[in-house]
């Protein structure tokens, strides 16, 4: 079976290994750079040019400033709250939606499916959505962050396909024992769908963790801001002033140097939770991806 590899195949394998290594470096290095920079001594970092292969010196000052910052604390607290509520709501709605659509003897199934699928190709658009949300009291309201996006039509279809693959005989055995559809959902469908549910928790959770746009148009009260909006001020708006209240005596160049380190530390603090979680669910990713079409 193990035939000697031809010359062409050896060349192919060598080049392929090289390409894959390149991909690893390209995907990993920006984050490593941020990690190294965040631990570096601010003054050494700002005068350094070129590729960073290890932290320059070792300084936790930037992290100290970040975790003591009120905005980061508020943002973290709000984001955790939004992620927990949104994920729970999204999971419940997506599961029950997928469940009813996966039942064979449900008269309005096709009408419902058409109504949901239509939202995949046409929508109200940014402005009408904003106006209508405002008119039902969603402005400056945390529900404008938690509820929208609770059912992704795509996730719903993926889940429905997965539920539909569960053998009918299991459902029938519950019905014979006098159970109803709720028993089928709770005792059969959910226990058999742990992998897809895990993936959905990840998708919805990460989606909410990283989302910022709705918050930026609906929220005015800064105490409700999610972490990403404070990140916008710090990373994009270049505003690290709130973290440097105690450095009034330091020079302008020192402040600039510290600001740079603070940015990198902020990125690490806000990104690490997600990067720690996803590899554990990696083997389930395929089950969360739509392979078949939305036919049927």
């Amino acid at each position, binding site marked *: 079976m193990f035939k000697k590899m031809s010359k062409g195949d050896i060349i192919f394998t060598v080049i392929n290994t090289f390409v894959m290594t390149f991909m690893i470096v390209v995907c990993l290095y920006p984050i490593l750079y941020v990690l190294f920079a965040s631990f570096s001594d601010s003054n050494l970092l700002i005068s350094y040019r070129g590729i960073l292969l290890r932290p320059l010196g070792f300084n936790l000052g930037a992290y100290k400033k970040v975790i003591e910052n009120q905005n980061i604390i508020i943002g973290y607290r709000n984001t955790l709250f939004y992620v927990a509520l949104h994920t729970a709501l999204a999971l419940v709605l997506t599961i029950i939606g997928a469940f009813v659509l996966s039942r064979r003897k449900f008269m309005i199934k096709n009408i*419902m499916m058409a*109504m949901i699928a239509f939202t995949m190709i*046409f929508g*109200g658009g940014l402005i009408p959505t904003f106006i209508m949300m405002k008119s039902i009291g969603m402005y400056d309201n945390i529900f404008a962050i938690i509820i929208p996006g609770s059912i992704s039509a795509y996730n719903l279809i993926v889940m429905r396909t997965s539920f539909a693959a569960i053998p009918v005989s299991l459902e029938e055995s519950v019905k014979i024992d006098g159970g109803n559809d709720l028993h089928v959902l709770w005792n059969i469908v959910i226990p058999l769908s742990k992998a897809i549910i895990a993936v959905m928790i990840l998708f919805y959770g990460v989606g909410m963790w990283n989302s910022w746009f709705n918050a930026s148009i609906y929220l005015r009260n800064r105490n409700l801001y999610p972490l990403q909006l404070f990140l916008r001020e710090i990373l*994009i708006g270049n505003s690290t002033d709130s973290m440097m209240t105690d450095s009034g005596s330091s020079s302008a160049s020192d402040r600039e140097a510290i600001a740079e380190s603070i940015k990198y530390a902020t*990125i690490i603090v806000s990104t690490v939770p997600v990067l720690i979680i996803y590899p554990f669910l990696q083997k389930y990713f395929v089950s969360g991806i739509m392979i078949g079409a939305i036919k049927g």
Partner: protein
Amino acid sequence: MQTQLPVHESFFKRLGKDIVVNKYLYLLALPVMAYFIIFHYLPMYGIIIAFKDYAPRVGILGSPWADNCGLANFIKFCTGPYFWRVLKNTLLISFYDILFGFPAPVIFAILMNEIQTKYFKKVVQTITYMPHFISIMVVCSLVISFTGRDGLINDIIEFFGGTRNNLLSAPEYFRTIFVTSGVWQSIGWNSIIYLAALSAIDKEQYESATIDGAGKLRQIISITLPGLAPTIIIMLILRMGTVLSIGYEKIILLYNPNTYSTSDVISSFIYRNSFTGQQQFSYSAAVGLLNSIVNTLFIIATNAVSRRVSETSLW
């Protein structure tokens, strides 16, 4: 149970019976339907502001209809100075994104599939999925930091004898930066669907090809690519449907007035006209509606073409 119903029963009679039989299913369907009605269909009702001169104080119904049979906002956009600019930018960014961003994960998945060491393959997967999980905010801040005058990319440019330049304030580099960072963020993640399709290809085909003396490249062309074709077509239909919808999130974080000539797309134009100072809601809604209609037509057309040409389609 109710599959053998007599034909003469009316729809509502059958529905009534179905509700009795499937009462729990209807109960469960209720919140789901409510969600879609409130958060998807209610905004569609809001589209009528595109045909009005919306004034927040009097509300949608109280606002007067726009001039020219309600089409004034559409006419204003189509004859306005920004029409061609935002249309061109949207199409060009989309075109480059499809040109580079679409084949990249396909090629990547095919190459990844050829890795013989299981452990190495897993490491490649884990690391290339990572950018997908990083927030747009952080990705944009990395882009800003790396393309800045003192950034890593300029360090490399200077090393090869070039001159330092703040790349994000130069209109000619915006598309490259936008598309490259997009490919970086999505190549690993988008390869998952192709890897899944690859794992479904019969291994015996490869074995018999090897016995016939076919090399790796030959096998990729004759076995792997045909096996992937249906998935590639479906993904292309989905991608074509979004050809006019470059998202505003990344654009509004990366662009600035210096680069509007290449970076301002339809969605960022809508955003800017509604949320930054000026509140031209009706005008923006009209622009958005034109955009959605073209998008919807695009996806229907691509689907129709694909069904005819390759017998693969979404519906």
